[in-house]
């Protein structure tokens, strides 16, 4: 209990100072609508979130959603699943958006709960949340480590 508190205090401090980002203990999972039967690997997920693929492998249209910047799940997702840090991804989208090629970029929804509720009601949506938030309103499409 004590170590947990210390850990969250440390994490809080780290994020406040914004100097380092720790890998988090709880895993991030990629979720889709309950009707989504796509089987995805991290490469395909990265392509969807970088706007390089607009469809799921089965051919259905994909609509990626992001959590707000600064969320732990977002940091985790980009580092572990997409394989690029957030700064790299931000620079990438700056280049695409202002070149008029920003189509297909993830829609920003809010926190994990907001993403879960969005994905549960949008059949094309794909998002990511902390694994502790998973329930049967969404389907887990991919799990990081």
């Amino acid at each position, binding site marked *: 209990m004590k170590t947990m508190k210390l850990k969250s205090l440390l994490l809080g401090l780290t994020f406040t100072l914004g100097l380092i980002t720790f890998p988090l203990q709880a895993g991030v999972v990629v979720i889709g609508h309950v009707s989504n039967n796509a089987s995805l690997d991290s490469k395909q997920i990265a392509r969807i979130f970088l706007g390089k693929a607009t469809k799921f492998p089965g051919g259905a249209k994909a609509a990626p959603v992001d959590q707000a910047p*600064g969320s732990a799940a977002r940091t985790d997702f980009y580092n572990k699943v997409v394989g690029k840090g957030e700064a*790299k991804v931000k620079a990438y989208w*700056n280049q695409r958006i*202002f070149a*008029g090629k920003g189509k297909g970029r993830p829609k920003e929804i809010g926190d994990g709960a907001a993403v879960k509720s969005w994905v549960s009601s949008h059949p094309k949506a794909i998002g990511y949340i902390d694994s502790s938030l998973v329930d049967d309103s969404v389907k887990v499409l991919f799990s990081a480590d």
Partner: protein
Amino acid sequence: MKVRDRKTLRVIATFLLALPVTLLANEDLSINGFLSVGASKSDADAVYYEGIADEVSFEPDTVVGVQFSAPVTEMVSFTTQLLASGNKDTYDLAADWAYADFSVGDSASIRAGRVKLPVFMASEYLEVGAAYPWVRPPEEVYSVVPVSAFSGVSAHYTGNFGNFDFSIEPYYGSHTEDIPQPTGVLSSTVRGFTGASLTLGNDVFTLRAGGLQGQLTIPEVGLDDEELSLFSVGARIDWENVLILSEYASRDIPGIVADSEGWYAMLGYRAGKFLPHVTVAQLDTDEVTPLAQKQKSTTVGVQYQLDYSTLLKVEWKNIELQEGSAGLFSTLPSDDKISIFSASVDLTF
């Protein structure tokens, strides 16, 4: 540097008047903006590229832009970028580009209107400081084609084989621009502007090549419909924490305007929120003209990520003028070794 074409601007103004009506009715409108506030100072007794001088000046590197993009129908969208740049005497607002984009299936689109000229790696986001690590992209290459947008059509096709994505962008149009020179303003017109740019890349590696040609007229220097041609190639490696950028450009124009050739190579390393980088660059022109521009430079800088959407940059550039040329200075400085210090805050919203 900024492009002026009165006829086009009139057309754009008409477009813009009609725009709010379309946009207000559209909840899919996306608005993106960028702001760069930059200051620079040189130790030379002559004015450098884009107005950098020996007093701290904010004008050359300060720019604000807002981009509106809205679907009009399922297949047609409209995008415009309004730009106010300190590069002019006043921060006048102008539509830098405004075009209609027609989607043809999932992987192709055609743009018509005032479109960006995709010659260099950073051509399409030249004004967006937050999209590259320097305060300004190396002028040894970017001055070779001092045009960022033109009037015409462009097509865009993307595809992939295996792990490689590629895109092909052919374009056609015309361009009119007043080029200020130490000797006075040159009014240039390029007709039959035809070119293409090719990009190939994967997660780590991007290669871009482009070429264009057209008929150039500059009455002030006796150029009448003379063939001009440009070629450029660039590479980007973004591997783990290492960032390598390099580009080469060559310009071939008959008559008094110098043929020129420029290149640069940058090595950067991402260390947490810091991105220190070093760049070497060279610009070379043929010797026969009084407008020869020959210089070498080394730039050392660092980019710091202040928060998710804000970057701070500082850099120091050391220029060595070659063979008595004034390089990119408007007049010959008394010393052929010049330092320029620049800093900027770049954000996107």
